């Protein structure tokens, strides 16, 4: 603990990130540049989220880290250990107990409260990047509110597939002004972007921070005749039986067998602990025994 400054980063770096966070909250959905530092993990492993978390953490925090909903994957485990070591904060897997949650590509199923902060790891913060590769141009497009291209992209989806095929990183409009990429969360999670909690987005390689204050208007882009739909696999969870949570499809044998399980591991475990059982819960328990 004494080997590191609190939460790893030096104080001047934290001030720079903190100023960016305040401006990001003041202009919801706008991408604020920041001088991203090299972190002791490669780009693509959540360096942006880690820097935002480091700037926000206080010693009393209880940290939860999830990767695609799971608390026990490599990325989540290593980031949790990083902050246990450098900030000495308590950690948890339970959504309800956490005060700061760093996430890669999911929003927890359990609604967040005003005492929680959600920090997203963001690969590409620019929603227009795959439509216009030049940063100078996308800056101008945001300045001029020139978002026609995004609608053309969604329209092309409909022309080609008969529906909007974009299923993750689904673009949203924030407070009627900025089009924002909510990071690659499934579009199932988009309605949860209107939250009680503060939501901060950190992109380390791209050196951008953006934010959503609580109770911020976040509208998923759509068309009158093709309204936005928060879709998920049409199944119940095979372990906990939930019919409303976002599901992962898991191949379980070489004969085409498959099961659907909650992507949010804490949600699934909590439900099973409360006695909810899904189609395959019994067989899974036998396997484990």
């Amino acid at each position, binding site marked *: 603990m004494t080997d590191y*400054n*609190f*939460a790893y980063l030096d*104080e*001047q770096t*934290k*001030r*720079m990130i*903190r*100023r*960016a*966070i*305040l*401006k*990001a*909250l*003041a*202009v*919801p959905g*706008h991408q*604020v*540049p920041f001088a991203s530092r090299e972190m002791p993990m490669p780009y693509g492993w959540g360096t942006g989220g880690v820097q935002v978390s480091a*700037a*926000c*953490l*206080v*010693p009393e925090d209880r940290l939860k880290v999830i990767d695609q909903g799971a608390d026990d994957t490599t990325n989540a485990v290593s980031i949790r250990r990083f902050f246990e070591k450098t900030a000495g904060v308590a950690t948890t897997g339970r959504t309800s107990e956490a005060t700061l949650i760093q996430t890669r590509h999911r929003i927890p199923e359990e609604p967040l409260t*005003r005492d929680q902060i959600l920090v997203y790891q963001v690969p590409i913060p620019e929603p227009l990047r795959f439509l216009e590769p030049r940063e100078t141009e996308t*800056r*101008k497009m*945001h*300045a*001029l509110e020139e978002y026609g291209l995004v609608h053309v992209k969604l329209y092309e989806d409909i022309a080609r597939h008969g529906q909007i095929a974009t299923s993750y990183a689904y673009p949203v409009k924030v*407070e009627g*002004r*900025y089009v924002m990429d909510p990071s690659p969360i499934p579009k199932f999670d988009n309605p949860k972007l209107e939250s009680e909690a*503060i939501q901060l987005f950190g992109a380390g390689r791209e050196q951008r921070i953006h*934010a*959503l*204050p*609580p*109770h*911020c*208007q976040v509208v998923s882009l759509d068309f009158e005749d093709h309204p936005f739909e928060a879709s998920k696999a049409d199944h119940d969870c095979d372990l906990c039986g939930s019919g409303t949570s976002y599901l992962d499809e898991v191949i379980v044998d070489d004969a085409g067998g498959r099961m659907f399980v909650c992507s949010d591991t804490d949600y699934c475990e909590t439900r099973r602990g409360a006695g909810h059982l899904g189609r395959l819960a019994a067989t899974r328990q036998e396997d484990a025994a």
Partner: protein
Amino acid sequence: MDQSVMTGGFSDPSIQAAWGFRAAMNAMARPGDILAVQGAQAPAPVSEAAAVLLLVLCDPDTPVWLAPSHDSDALRRWVAFHTGAPVVAARGEAAFALGRWDSLAPLGDYRIGTAEYPDRSATLIVEMDDLRAEGAVLTGPGIKEVAGLNLPDVAAFRANRALFPLGLDFFFTCGDRLAALPRSTCVTDPAEVS
């Protein structure tokens, strides 16, 4: 050298700055919420909350403008010793400005950002005699329905909101308490609402 310049900083900078920032962020994310901060003491008449904000947010990268209500040799030396922030002579050069409301005006002189980088705008720390969650009616991002704050003016904040996404962001400080008003908040006179 005057010893008082060197006192009044954080005793545990890393931790106290983290607490101070958490309060500042919660205030900026929820306009109208009033939060308490501790741990810094700058030369009079700077409030404890304003001193905390200076220590948490200012460093050699952030030019600071001190309004006549607060400008003094003692404070300039305190800011230089504790933050290293350059104290500038013109409002238009400042990233942060500190003072009483009347003394900070005219607001038109501060940087409001550019269309491409609206974040390059000034943040004003306004020292108040009183901080109460009543008075002007606030709506917008961060506010569930409505919030109230005894703002020193309504027209100025309304004009600032009209510049969105450009504009100034404000902290209000009184004793050890602070509140914030980002440019995104709509401000209404309570007389008009009823």
